[in-house]
């Protein structure tokens, strides 16, 4: 019960501050989740950090929804270490022009997370000090977690259908 009251409290404060810019609030498995927009994301994150004590940036990642207008969701996970509360923030951005402001201005730790998200999804974090690939080789050429790219290695010849009578 205590968790829910805490979440309500956060919800009220966020809505007071950002109004219509904070939408689609839900609470799957007790984890407060909401959607916001890229013009206010930095304000939302710094408000959460400075005023609501979400001091720890757990993760930045993305999800690809092919075929939608705003087909890439950038997902932020924050943790309030004092109150032991977690929170999840989603920002939907355009698949054709996937740009979003960097969070490295708020957390230094965002640096590698954003590089990873850029490497795998091609999300360009504007203002990032060093946006290069981090996990894959430099000449990979694609962002492999976008769903149009196959996860299997096309160089491998021993799994061709002809070898299995297909």
């Amino acid at each position: 019960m205590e968790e829910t009251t805490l979440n309500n409290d956060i919800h009220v404060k966020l809505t007071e501050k950002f109004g219509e810019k904070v939408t689609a609030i839900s609470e799957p498995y007790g984890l407060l989740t909401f959607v916001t927009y890229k013009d206010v994301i930095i304000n939302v994150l710094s408000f959460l950090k400075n005023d609501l004590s979400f001091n720890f940036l757990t993760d930045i990642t993305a999800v690809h929804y092919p075929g939608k207008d705003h087909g890439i969701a950038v997902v932020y996970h924050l943790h309030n270490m004092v109150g032991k509360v977690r929170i999840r923030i989603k920002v939907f951005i355009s698949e054709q022009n996937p740009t979003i402001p960097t969070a490295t201005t708020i957390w230094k730790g965002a640096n590698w997370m954003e590089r990873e998200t850029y490497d795998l999804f091609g999300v360009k974090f504007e203002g990032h000090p060093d946006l290069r690939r981090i996990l894959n080789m430099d000449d990979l050429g694609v962002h492999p977690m976008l769903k149009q790219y196959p996860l299997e290695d096309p160089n491998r010849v021993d799994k061709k259908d002809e070898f299995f009578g297909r």
Partner: protein
Amino acid sequence: MSEINIVDAPPGIEGSGFFATSFDKVIGLARSNSLWPLPFATSCCGIEFMATMGSHYDLGRFGAERLSFSPRQADVLMVMGTIAKKMAPVLKQVYIQMAEPRWVMAVGACASSGGIFDTYSVLQGIDEVIPVDVYVPGCPPRPEAILDGFQRIQDLVKSESGRRRNSDYYKELLGQYGIK
């Protein structure tokens, strides 16, 4: 009674007070019983290899007592584990830094073929970047299998020409990988 085993002499011409054979055979014999492996271990096969080095399986019995964690002086590169494509240039550089003569052993499914990791980020067998002499099957292979692979390397070392590196075949093989 001594329990020390002594390797048999290579075939040659023997008489009272002399023994004659070819340099290739003598050098091959010496090399094959004093190999210095360079372990390149990245995952589970590497753990099996640690057991192979330990007292029970004891790789040292084959003259490979000294494991070199540097390409300097090493002559057998043992690749054990998954090699990501990002790692491939590093592996190739280690191979190039080793002096001739050198041999390569791919241990386990990942090093031999990419194994279960049929994915964009994993090298589908180290023979895409460096030539391999012996493949050890298994996922991961038992220490006995690694020892068997090591003995196959010894057979190769023993029987091949001391001037392998000068042969056209070998030059062409390395040329395929872009190694001079």
